[in-house]
């Protein structure tokens, strides 16, 4: 794949509004996960409490958008400003909007459902469908920035944002667009959705401990992560800041089980991404793992990484930033791609916190507890979804 430049990042996360806050917390190994006070269940989570939509949008604007659109627009504003892609720069350029989300406007959907089942003759707000539909997020971003080249939302469970970013990169690499606003968003911390997640018995009661012994499962969070991707020549010609290069994208299907991961499926996605990037294994210094903190998924992912890269001293250092920002579902791949871009830029692997000790079933070198410095020429960002939908990106260092 022709390398694609990452020229801007933006985030709304459990750490607040701004990619800077997000990356600082990751560097320092801070968790954004805490008890959900307004939810009667026994789970913890990462709500984007620091995000104040009323500070960004008028009441009228808010009546037409779900929380997902509010979060993704603010993240997109930040990413576009960072990239310097203002109106003049965008003129006569083909742009795309490709975003990932698992379920779309769940808060709006829950409002509809609650009203329908609790009132005798319910009237549903006229914008109920437009705010609920997942693609609403992409539409709002296109309208905000006047992006006309094409777009949609991708839904592939926990790999949604990674598929979105990979698809956007490939479109640019194929010459279909000059730039893309891409990433992912989710706002699924609603009472009914949390209850449904609890029903799966895979949520950790206290902390997310990826690759650790006695890990108990995942911790959910919400937010939006946005990246601006650009054709390399386009980015250079306008002197844009190039944070890193997105050089490869691979995907696979396990075709195996709705819940149990497949080592072979994960490995095929990694292999395809490396081939797409023409990147030899020795170049890969770091893997931002899917690392949900569930027993089976972490073990399978570690086994796949070990099988691909071996265990020599130069093998990539693995981390799961989900231990800090939680599993942001449709935004997960965007949060983690942003973390990977920063790791490659700074030669610093962010830590995997909360470990109680290494698990022999996860035979990879994990950056437990504290960030680890090491030269990183290339890194992988893995996303593995329920139902066996895997997506892997290759991120490489930009010349200083």
């Amino acid at each position: 794949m022709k390398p694609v430049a990452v020229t801007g990042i933006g985030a709304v996360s459990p750490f607040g509004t701004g990619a800077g806050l997000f990356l600082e917390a990751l560097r320092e190994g801070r968790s954004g996960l805490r008890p959900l006070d307004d939810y009667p269940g026994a789970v913890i989570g990462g709500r984007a409490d620091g995000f104040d939509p009323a500070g960004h949008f008028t009441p009228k604007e808010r009546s037409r958008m779900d929380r997902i659109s509010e979060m993704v627009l603010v993240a997109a504003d930040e990413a576009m400003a960072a990239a310097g892609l203002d109106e003049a720069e965008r003129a006569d350029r083909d742009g795309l909007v490709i975003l990932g989300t698992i379920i779309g406007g769940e808060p709006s959907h829950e409002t509809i459902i609650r009203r329908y089942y609790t009132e005798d003759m319910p009237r549903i707000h006229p914008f109920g469908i437009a705010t609920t539909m997942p693609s609403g997020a992409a539409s709002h971003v296109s309208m905000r920035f006047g992006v006309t080249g094409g777009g949609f939302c991708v839904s592939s469970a926990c790999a949604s944002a990674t598929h979105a970013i990979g698809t956007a990169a490939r479109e640019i690499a194929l010459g279909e667009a000059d730039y893309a606003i891409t990433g992912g968003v989710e706002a699924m911390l609603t009472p009914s959705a949390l209850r449904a997640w609890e029903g799966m018995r895979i949520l950790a009661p206290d902390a997310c401990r990826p690759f650790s012994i006695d890990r108990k499962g995942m911790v959910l969070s919400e937010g939006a992560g946005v990246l601006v991707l650009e054709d390399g020549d386009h980015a250079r010609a306008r002197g844009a800041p190039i944070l890193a290069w997105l050089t490869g994208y691979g995907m696979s299907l396990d075709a195996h089980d709705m819940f149990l991961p497949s080592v072979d499926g994960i490995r095929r996605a990694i292999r395809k991404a490396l081939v797409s990037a023409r990147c030899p294994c020795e170049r890969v210094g770091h893997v931002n793992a899917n690392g949900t903190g569930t027993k089976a998924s972490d073990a399978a992912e570690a086994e796949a990484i070990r099988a691909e890269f071996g265990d020599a001293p130069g093998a990539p250092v693995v981390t799961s930033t989900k231990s800090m920002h939680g599993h942001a579902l449709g935004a997960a791949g965007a949060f983690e791609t942003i973390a990977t871009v920063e790791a490659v830029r700074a030669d610093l692997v962010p830590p995997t916190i909360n470990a109680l000790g290494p698990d022999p079933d996860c035979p990879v070198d994990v950056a437990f507890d504290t960030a680890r410095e090491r030269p990183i020429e290339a890194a992988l960002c893995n996303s593995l979804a329920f139902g066996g939908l895997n997506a892997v990106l290759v991120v490489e260092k930009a010349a200083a």
Partner: protein
Amino acid sequence: MEISDEIEQRLVAAVGRAAFVETDAVSLDTTIEDLGLDSADMVQVVFEIEDEFDISLADQGVEGVATVRDLVALLARARAPSAAE
């Protein structure tokens, strides 16, 4: 059917909510144009009124609405005994 002042005030307040303007800024003579409402906004206005009065406004009636007073007339028609049959 006669529309009381109280009902007029509730309608004006509903229009204000749907248009995202202060109730003071809305009177019976305020036009839809004054409020800057497009067709999607008008759907929201109808929703607010229907919700406030637990009533259904005739779809065909909304087309010709130019002022808040026209909305009062629409409400009066919907509340008339014949409309309930």
